[in-house]
């Protein structure tokens, strides 16, 4: 069918990068939803505006989130997408899959949905795009039977995500896959039943490279690090040197704290441990020669978010170092304390970072029982507007 009716979209089938239009067309002969999605999208391309109605609350029994309601504003023209709801399916840690699992998901979505997906959504879920209201419950039932569950949406814990971690990365200082899974399982109720002021995202990165953008994007970032000294293998250093790699220029001179020094005659690299801030630049450049230390754990940061409403925040350090060992009781308890305080004080649609900004870090730290330490700030305050607790005032 599709082709002659979508002259604008057809332009997006040209060129070397794989085309989402081709993907939609693949399903268009089998699925009226995909065919009408193409039609409606062509109209959007013509008119330069979206054609989805505002919101829409749909769901499956027992859940408050996980399904995004979507209705066409032109159901007469495009009946196939009159109801075109999205199901968010909680991805396995690190986005690893067996083909058996992927095929199961495809078969279920062939039966109940448009046959279109996103691998993955921005937060990390498997996105099953487009199903009518009546198909949501049976689709969920069958997904559940096969061991899959919904992700988060609305004012709840959003689906936690993590990097490849120890499964396929030598930089992983923590078991990101296991931490992500353990937190997801511990907080199923928070994930599935929106009850908070707004969304709360958790991301787990194995090292400071932060391949899951935890610091920019997560309300709560868990970033792997180490406390002792990075490990240098001088045989590895020699190998890089003999290969002609510019150790002085690319590594030593780019170390942000000038913690490294290189002796080109001996082909030896050394580090002043007290100056190293563990940024992993040298490890990125010389993975065969430099490795993280062995006393490993995570730095915990809070408050990251994108622009809406009061400007974007990068997450702020609240715990410089925490050991991360199963069952991760300490971090789970900290999360509970954070949520309790945010839930009590947060306004509607106020992210936890915005609340901390409004009420002050000192109130937050006291509520969650964390000590103030210099690692929390780039520099101390420059103004004298200091708040004092009642017990700090001398009363005669």
């Amino acid at each position: 069918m599709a082709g002659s009716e979508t002259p604008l979209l057809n332009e997006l089938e040209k060129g070397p990068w794989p085309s989402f239009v081709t993907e939609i067309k693949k399903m268009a002969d089998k699925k009226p939803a995909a065919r009408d999605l193409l039609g409606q999208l062509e109209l959007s391309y013509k008119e330069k505006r979206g054609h989805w109605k505002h919101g829409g609350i749909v769901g499956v029994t027992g859940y408050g989130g996980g399904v995004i309601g979507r209705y066409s504003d032109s159901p007469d023209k495009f009946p196939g997408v009159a109801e075109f709801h999205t199901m968010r399916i909680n991805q396995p840690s690190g986005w690893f899959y067996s083909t058996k699992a992927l095929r199961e998901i495809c078969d279920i979505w062939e039966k109940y949905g448009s046959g279109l997906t996103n691998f993955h959504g921005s937060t990390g879920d498997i996105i099953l795009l487009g199903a009518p209201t009546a198909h949501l419950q049976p689709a969920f039932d069958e997904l559940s039977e096969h061991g899959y569950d919904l992700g988060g949406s609305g004012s709840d814990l959003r689906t936690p995500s993590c990097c490849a971690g120890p499964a396929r990365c030598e930089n992983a200082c923590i078991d990101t896959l296991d931490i992500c899974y353990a937190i997801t399982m511990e907080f199923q109720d928070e994930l599935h039943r929106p009850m908070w002021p707004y969304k709360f995202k958790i991301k787990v990165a194995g090292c400071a490279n932060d391949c899951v953008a935890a610091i920019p994007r997560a309300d709560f970032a868990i970033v792997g690090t180490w406390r002792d000294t990075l490990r240098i293998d001088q045989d590895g250093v020699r190998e890089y040197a003999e290969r002609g790699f510019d150790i002085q220029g690319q590594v030593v001179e780019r170390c942000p704290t000038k913690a490294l020094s290189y002796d080109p005659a001996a082909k030896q690299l050394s580090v002043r441990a007290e100056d190293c801030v563990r940024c992993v630049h040298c490890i990125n450049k010389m993975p065969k020669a430099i490795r993280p230390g062995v006393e490993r754990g995570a730095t915990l940061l809070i408050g990251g978010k994108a622009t809406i409403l009061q400007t974007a925040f990068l997450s702020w350090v609240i715990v410089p170092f925490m050991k991360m060992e199963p069952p991760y009781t300490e971090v789970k308890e900290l999360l509970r304390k954070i949520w309790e305080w945010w839930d009590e004080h947060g306004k509607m649609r106020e992210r936890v970072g915005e609340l901390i900004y409004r009420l002050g870090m000192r109130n937050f730290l006291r509520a969650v029982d964390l000590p103030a330490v210099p690692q929390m700030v780039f520099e101390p305050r420059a103004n004298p507007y200091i708040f004092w607790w009642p017990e700090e005032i001398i009363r005669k």
Partner: protein
Amino acid sequence: MAKTDIGPPHYSQMLPPIIKENYGKWKYHEILRPGVLKHVSETGAELYTVRAGSPRLLAIDTIREICNLADKYCDGYLRFTSRYNIEFLLTNPANIDPLIEDLKKLGFPVGGTGPAITNMVHTQGWVHCHTPATDASGIVKAIMDELYDYFVSMKLPAKLRISLACCLNMCGAVHCSDIGLVGIHRTIPKIDHEWVPKQCEIPTVIASCPTFAIRPDPKRKSVQINEEKCMYCGNCYTMCPAMPIADPDNDGVAIFVGGKVSNARTAPKFSRLAIPWLPNNPPRWPEVVQAVKKLVDVYARNAREGERYGEWIDRIGWETFFKLAEIPFTEKHIDDFIFSVPTFRTTTNFRW
């Protein structure tokens, strides 16, 4: 009745034997060529990864084709990256070339490693979002076609991350990208006074405005907008469907540069405004594509080896960046929102 709250499948079911055997034991990795990684374990085991670009929006038929390849070459396992790339995990290096050949036949490019452009993080746009100021998949496709060569090679000074969000809600990590594109509005919401009282909770709508531009209109049991205060964030529309903000002629794309996510060398940082607005010009957004191409080229020509976009600008200064990029600096580049002051220059030290 289906079971609820079972959570995702345990990750161990999804890991190939070589990964289970070497979990946490990886020693180092090398990039053998664009799109091909080799991870070596302390046990001596070697794992090869072939990374392929994806449009993210995938038909189940395509996923099945991908599964066929993973069955044929990877013992039935694969993974996806945080930027939607597909990673095939191989134990036999002899399978790398045949797999890449098969991927080519399916139209999947192999690359996105090292000093390259990898897949663009992006949002739903007109395909599935109800608040977009622009499309997502279409611009991404047009940009990736133009920058394709930078995906399949490794010739940039450092990695370059491009992202796109179709509105200010920014479902993608656009605010910390080397080049971030954001769909923006430029006109105030159109208030449907008949429907506001029926569909919206007035106090919530008023409270939703970050610049206090909305006040009640008691006569009509509706609201009014102070046009001078509105900065077109669309948050009120999210709260109230009777205040649509989309405007086909005035919506468009703003481009930010110099952000980064990683802590390597320097702290993560926000992208900063380079181009305030370019029109929505579907199907291929030529103005946006050419602007991005130019921004990539000026970086590729001028940055030093290993320098990310923002690190390059830190070295040369924003005043030099605008000159080199041939982008006019306007009053729109000077922040006038709530955290503006620290961006004003408070020193006589600057370049010409």
